[in-house]
């Protein structure tokens, strides 16, 4: 699971059917790192939006905690391949790593 905190959401309220890509430092998602499944959410026209984005089977170790990642959200109302320019939000603090568990190691043995 990864949790994003979105700021400056798109002006105006839309019902979104977004697909989410994550990329580091690039405005356009041409070098995306992952693709989530589609879901719907309402984005208000002001304030912050918090939502949980559950990504299955994703190896979070490829994400660097020090890197600021950008979240690209495709507007379901737009043309399929037209990335809505007003939908880019920053991932302010990606929640990577749970401090509750540290130094996990697992070893397999024949019983």
């Amino acid at each position, binding site marked *: *699971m990864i949790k994003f905190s979105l700021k400056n959401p798109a002006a105006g309220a839309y019902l979104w059917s977004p697909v989410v890509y994550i990329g580091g430092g690039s405005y356009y998602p041409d070098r995306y790192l992952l693709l989530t499944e589609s879901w719907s959410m309402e984005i208000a026209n002001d304030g912050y939006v918090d939502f949980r984005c559950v990504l*299955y*089977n994703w*190896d979070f170790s490829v994400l660097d905690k020090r890197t600021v990642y950008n979240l690209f959200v495709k507007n379901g109302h737009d043309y399929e391949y037209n990335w809505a320019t007003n939908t880019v939000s920053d991932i302010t603090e990606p*929640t990577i790593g749970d401090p*509750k*568990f540290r130094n*996990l190691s697992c070893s397999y043995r024949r*019983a």
Partner: protein
Amino acid sequence: MPETKKRDIVTPIAVTAGAVAVGTGIYFYMKKPKGVDPGETFTVQFAFAYNGDGGDYFLQVSLGHVRIMEPFFDHIEGLTWTLGIQLPPGPQDWEFIVPCKLPLAVATKVYDGETLIRTPDMDWLDYIEDTKIVTRGAITVRKE
């Protein structure tokens, strides 16, 4: 008449016999192919430091295969095991053993392993961040 020394032959024989027994054991142990037979149990030891507020968790082990080009793990039906644990508030170091009994019908080959920690209300594919470990070639299921 000089006193004759009695030779102790029991000790050398016992030592030799013991060495032969140990050697035979090592020979047969080495001869036995590495791995686990179908129907047998292997274990996975989880070791971690916990600093949470306490709660219920699942330690989960899955056998499957890591895709070569992608960081995804293909699970196999019937090859996932979980152990429910209850942790008191930390900090504290813990070790748990998860027993994993293989089905008799499991295919004989090398499997990759996926271990993770999740809460009971999380989907079985979901996991607490930084608690998933994928091990290539974790278990070899050998022919009986």
